[in-house]
């Protein structure tokens, strides 16, 4: 879109922003009061742009898509892209592109249209999934302990390294779990599960607000 947005474009973006409700918006206060700064905190990062990609990553179309996403991951757990746009591995020919909300076409970005153009008429698909999932950020020295109450994967740092994202289950619901740094996890539940998972995590976090019983 144009480098300088016209007043009409700005008004449109504001209208889009004002009309939206994020899946865990009603829990924002609970997330704040349930967070234990320095130990474990929880917040929603709403409206991230997400695009589902299906493409053979070694094909020409795969290479074109990869040029926009900063590569396409080759194996389970791998995440490509160093900047704001990242691609997460969902399957051998299936990826989830995650980017900041401004990159969405409805807010003046070009992510979805760029990816659609990159795929062209080749075999595959580009689907705007931005409203499909929301993002929870679980942070702190006890974030892993909270996740370990429900996640059956080995989350020990020697196995589950920072920069890894896997599709798995938390509290019996399917999520993407992305360890972005040593004490920071991004969790992508589908919108309809956001309320449940948000409350579940709050409950799991509660004990860390009290002094540890030796």
């Amino acid at each position, binding site marked *: 879109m144009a480098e300088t947005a016209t007043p009409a474009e700005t008004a449109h973006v504001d209208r889009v922003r004002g009309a939206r409700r994020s899946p865990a918006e009603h829990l924002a206060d609970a997330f704040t009061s349930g967070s234990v700064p320095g130990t474990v905190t929880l917040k929603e990062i709403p409206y991230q742009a997400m695009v589902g990609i299906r493409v053979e990553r070694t094909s020409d179309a795969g290479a074109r898509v990869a040029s926009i996403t900063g590569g396409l991951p080759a194996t389970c757990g791998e995440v490509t892209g160093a900047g704001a746009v990242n691609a997460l591995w969902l*399957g051998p020919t299936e990826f989830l592109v995650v980017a900041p909300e401004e990159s969405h076409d409805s807010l003046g970005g070009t992510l979805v249209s760029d990816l659609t153009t990159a795929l062209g008429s080749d075999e595959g698909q580009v689907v705007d999934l931005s409203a499909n999932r929301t993002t929870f950020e679980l942070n702190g020295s006890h974030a892993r302990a909270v996740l370990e109450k429900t996640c059956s994967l080995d989350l020990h740092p020697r196995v589950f390294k920072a920069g890894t994202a*896997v599709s798995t289950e938390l509290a019996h619901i399917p999520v993407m779990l992305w360890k972005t740094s040593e004490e920071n996890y991004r969790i992508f539940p589908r919108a309809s599960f956001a309320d449940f998972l948000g409350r579940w995590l709050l409950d799991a976090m509660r004990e860390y607000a009290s002094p540890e019983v030796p």
Partner: protein
Amino acid sequence: MLLISCPNCGPRDETEFHYGGQAHIAYPENPNDLTDREWAEYLFYRENTKGTFAERWVHSTGCRQWFNMLRDTVSYDIHSIYAMGQPRPDTTGEYGQAGGAGLAPGAPTTSTAAAAPTSSEGV
């Protein structure tokens, strides 16, 4: 809880998977040539194996890919995991009676499986 090694994702809990029933049932070459009975048997008749059984699974919460598995329906031991389209691995010898003797409908019952009632027998 079974721990199933997805060929793409590695070991995951059974709850991440869905079961796809018996493996290696080929779609009939010419469905129109089949009698109603043959068609019904293709659609609905499955073995009810006691012992090593070839079955399909899909990693539905993970990579969403299908694969085949040889699993012992009594001990739940997983003997082999292999790709769709690959033939059933021969595990005879390695696992004693594994290999399917007496498992096909109407197949002669082996002595080791004599005590095993197979509901698919005689169809």
